[in-house]
């Protein structure tokens, strides 16, 4: 069952390594976080991506690249969330060969909220409940056929779920 997954992981790793070597050539050996990027590709918990404070950087750490907009993703989230501590968010897609789905909340202190790995045979649909510190877009990212697609929706938050 894992042949496809492994080959995708290998592809992703090659892309990441390619990007890393370009970065090394271009910037000198500065701070491209190869080990963490590989950690995501190797199916380990992607800790650095979850700790990242900039959402674009978090996505790059997780996937090694940026997603393109797609209209084949349906993201359900409330227009207004009275309680940011519990915001129901779900995504479903008609894209084929989906291997992962993730949720990103750019205005949260740690934007990457959840990353779901979907082995072959698992439906490309996930529902969960997120915390939102304040009004923000919610981005759903779908990895399908080795490519990255995203869609987003704004959720207005009246009482934040991360404050204190």
């Amino acid at each position, binding site marked *: 069952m894992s042949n496809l997954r492994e080959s995708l992981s290998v592809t992703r790793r090659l892309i990441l390594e390619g990007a890393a070597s370009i970065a090394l050539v271009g910037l000198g050996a500065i701070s491209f976080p190869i080990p963490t990027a590989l950690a995501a590709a190797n199916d380990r918990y992607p800790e650095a991506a*979850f700790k990242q404070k900039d959402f674009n950087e978090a996505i790059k750490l997780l996937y090694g690249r940026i997603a393109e907009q797609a209209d084949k993703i349906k993201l359900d989230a409330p227009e207004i969330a009275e309680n940011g501590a*519990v915001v129901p968010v779900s995504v479903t897609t008609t894209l084929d060969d989906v291997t992962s789905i993730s949720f990103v909340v750019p205005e949260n*202190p740690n934007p990457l909220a959840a*990353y779901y*790995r979907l*082995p072959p*045979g698992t439906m490309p649909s996930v*529902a969960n409940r997120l915390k939102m510190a304040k009004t923000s877009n919610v981005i759903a990212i779908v990895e399908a056929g080795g490519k990255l697609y995203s869609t987003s929706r704004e959720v207005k938050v009246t009482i934040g779920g991360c404050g204190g």
Partner: protein
Amino acid sequence: MASSIRVRAIANGGITEVQTLIQHPMDSGFIKDENGQFIPAHFIQELTFEHDGRKVFVADWGTAVAKDPYVKFSFKGGNKGDDLKVGWIDNQGTTDTTTVKIQ
């Protein structure tokens, strides 16, 4: 101790729908208690579902998943009476597992 994990898995038309509710504080580390001290981060990092010896769903979570997390997904296959094994590990190394029958 009662399991922290509640799972309902229902097979229908060749697809098994799984809904899970876990009791866990999911503390983000960004919230202060009444004494003004930050409550340390305490959250589930990985939640795994296994059917018939293979993983059917893996959730990697950060601090922004709501307290007492809920997640729903579906996979092809699974028959009434099959085992579904569910386990999580949090950032403090605590774990819990349970096995339920698909309905």
